[in-house]
């Protein structure tokens, strides 16, 4: 049987940086192949070569045995290849329906767009994913997870033969991930060829038939999932053993650093809690539970409507992110592309933006030497894969962008750190580095709020877990009494309450 899609000896370099070296890769009909590898290994690049966004320097590509050469994404789409991109590619000002049919709107003979068809189809494809989103909602108003579901719906609506999913789950919680997997199951049954990229290795073993591993641009392993275990996979990815994915260090909590009292803000109905210096407080919850909104309210990005916030015993008014930064709060957004980093600017400018005051004297002059030294320190501490401090963010791999986004908030030396999905798109090795960093910061006495949809991560790293649902706190667990079942029950508790109340 010939493979659906076959790549052989693919090379790709950006300038002088070689990103792919002689890569072979196969997609079979009716199978899901996982593509694993560290941040910057070249996974997205390889996929973009398949879809014609990048052009390969050497190598062959055969679709159903026939040599093909796509020069635009459009051509690959017409040839039956759809891709869900790692970075969201939706236009926030357009409606969901318009986004899904962007560039391929159904028109009648007069060239008029058939809106009713767009509406019907959009409902249908979102329905397959069990999403009750109105087709005319402005896309920018949706949560990141919902937007991700819209991306997936767009790819499904193309009814392609080959569907490439570049980290589709990194913004999803367990529930949506399960929905996606059910859909993938169905597509596999229909004989489609699927490529699945994820840094959540558990998902690879749950979902995929084959796995291919890229390391530094070389394809180092390819074979059935059943013949490898997680440790083996990690060994292929990082080239060495990696033990203890969640290196927890017990906390020595000190005084109360943050006291939130009856806080009401957009998406937050009434929340009170305390967090201590030297403590990691995890926040669990479903999409739309109000965790991101709570984080933004504490930071000052969505000012509170009522209630109070005390930091180190001082009542604090936070009306803007500027107030948040001055009060010693660091905030890492879940949406690095639109809210975290300036894509067209360099690492240096991005990293120092929040903490610029540290390198600035009273006349506003920036000490560029000090800035460069500090920025370089963080790039090294996070092992960001880049060719210099002036490299442009959009040229970094997704995981490396995420590292920069976290480092950026630390440059301002905060006392309180709010991390919203901090390991989105980060590879196993780097995840562990980030956890270790969280431990270090904790030991230095930072108060850390960890908002995460990754349950093992939440339970592995937090000292305490609070559960949010529907804008309310519905549960609180000490580290040793936290169990997944009980937490899951709390995540839906507020929904019941809302329905009753």
């Amino acid at each position: 049987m010939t493979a659906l899609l076959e790549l052989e000896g693919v090379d790709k370099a950006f300038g002088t940086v070689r990103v792919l070296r002689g890569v072979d890769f196969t997609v079979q009909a009716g199978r899901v192949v996982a593509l694993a590898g560290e941040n910057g290994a070249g996974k997205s690049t390889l996929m973009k070569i398949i879809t014609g966004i990048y052009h390969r320097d050497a190598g062959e590509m055969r679709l159903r045995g026939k040599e093909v050469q796509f020069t635009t994404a459009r051509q690959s789409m017409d040839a039956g290849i759809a891709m869900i991109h790692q970075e969201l590619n939706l236009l926030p000002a357009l409606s969901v329906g318009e986004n899904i049919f962007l560039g391929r709107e159904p028109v009648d003979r007069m060239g008029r767009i058939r809106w009713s068809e767009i509406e019907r189809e959009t409902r249908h494809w979102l329905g397959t994913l069990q999403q009750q989103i109105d087709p005319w909602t402005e896309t920018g108003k949706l949560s990141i997870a919902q937007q991700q579901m819209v991306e997936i719906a767009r790819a499904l609506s193309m009814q392609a033969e080959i569907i490439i999913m570049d980290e589709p789950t990194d913004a999803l919680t367990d529930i949506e991930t399960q929905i996606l997997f059910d859909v993938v199951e169905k597509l596999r049954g229909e004989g489609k060829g699927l490529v699945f990229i994820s840094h959540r290795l558990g998902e690879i073993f749950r979902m995929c038939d084959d796995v291919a591993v890229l390391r530094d641009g070389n394809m180092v392993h390819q074979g059935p999932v059943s013949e490898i275990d997680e440790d083996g996979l990690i060994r292929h990815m990082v080239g060495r053993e990696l033990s203890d994915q969640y290196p927890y260090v017990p906390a020595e909590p000190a005084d109360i650093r943050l006291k939130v009292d009856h806080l009401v803000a957009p998406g937050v109905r009434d929340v009170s809690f305390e967090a201590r210096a030297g403590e990691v407080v995890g926040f669990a919850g479903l999409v739309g539970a109000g965790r991101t909104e709570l984080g933004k309210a504490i930071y000052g990005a969505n000012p509170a409507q009522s209630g109070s916030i005390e930091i180190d015993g001082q009542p604090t008014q936070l009306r803007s992110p500027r107030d948040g930064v001055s009060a010693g709060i660091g905030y890492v957004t879940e949406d690095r592309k639109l809210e975290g980093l300036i894509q067209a600017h360099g690492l240096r400018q991005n990293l120092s933006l929040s903490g610029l005051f540290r390198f600035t004297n009273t006349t506003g002059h920036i000490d560029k030497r000090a800035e460069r030294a500090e920025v370089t320190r963080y790039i090294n501490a996070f092992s960001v894969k880049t060719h210099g401090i002036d490299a442009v963010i959009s040229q970094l791999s997704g995981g490396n962008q995420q590292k920069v986004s976290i480092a950026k908030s630390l440059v301002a030396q905060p006392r309180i750190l709010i991390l919203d999905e901090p390991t989105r798109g980060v590879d196993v090795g780097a995840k562990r580095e980030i956890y270790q960093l969280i431990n270090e910061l904790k030991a230095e006495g930072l108060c850390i709020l960890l908002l995460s949809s990754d349950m093992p991560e939440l339970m592995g790293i937090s000292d305490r877990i609070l559960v949010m649902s529907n804008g309310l706190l519905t549960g609180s667990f000490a580290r040793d009494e936290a169990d997944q079942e009980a937490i899951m029950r709390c995540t839906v508790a507020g929904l019941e309450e809302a329905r009753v109340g």
Partner: protein
Amino acid sequence: MNAKGFIRENIPLFGLILLMAAVSLYSPNFLTVDNLLNILRQTSINAIIAMGMTFVILTAGIDLSVGSILAFAGAVCASMIAVDTPLIVALLTTIAIGAALGMASGTIVAFFGVQAFIATLVAMTMVRGLVLVYTDGRPISTGDFDVANSFYEIGGGYVAEIPVPVIIAALAFLICWYVLNHTQFGRYVYAIGGNEQVARLAGVNVARVKLIVYATSGALSALAGIILTARLESAQPTAGMAYELDAIAAVVLGGTSLAGGRGRITGTLIGALIIGVLNNALNIMDVSSYYQQIAKGAVILLAVVADGRSKASSR
């Protein structure tokens, strides 16, 4: 950086050199000290306005009101000089008025979320109206007091053979360059144009930065108005008409993106010089003023396309 990269980064500069080489081949009178100084003097007004425009465009805005502010500032300044106001008082008041007018459109942009194009279009119309009301549609002479003579020096004087406007423009350039490249404020200007939401979430006071940016543009327009008025020894109610277009052209020729966040003030200076050289060359070559417009447009188009090409090919 390799040679190819260097050329790609400096397309405007090479454009200017190429243009000058071509003109000097055609006309031996072009590359003379006198003519070059003449070009610099003629360029200085547009260069000063374009520097303020650079700040605005870097924040992803635009300022259409520069010409009107130039005219109003000139009129106010002329009438102050005409009643023997001490020079320094007249100059500072005029610049302050320019800054205040700029800040007015800045307020509309920053706090009411009105698009810069609309806000400054309104300002352009209203301030021009203000000029007509203030001057009653007639030129205002700077008068016969002694102060008028010192005032003239600002536009028509020389220091060691160099025209005073050129010196003023050079100083303005150095200050703008320093601010954009070495200060926190400059960083914030770029950040806002790069992604306003990211800047806001990083703790940048976006509204305040925008206010200062528009105020700067207004103040520099007023400065340009002072120079023009001084040189002519009178303020014209129609002064500065369409100057915003030359300023925007200079910024764009200098490689600054109208989408904001990317560009350099050195580029703007070069852009202004390209326009200056072009005007001068077309005059030397005796091209009719009707054709001059067409030629100018063509060169701008060519330069912008070349710049865009080289940037696209670096991907």
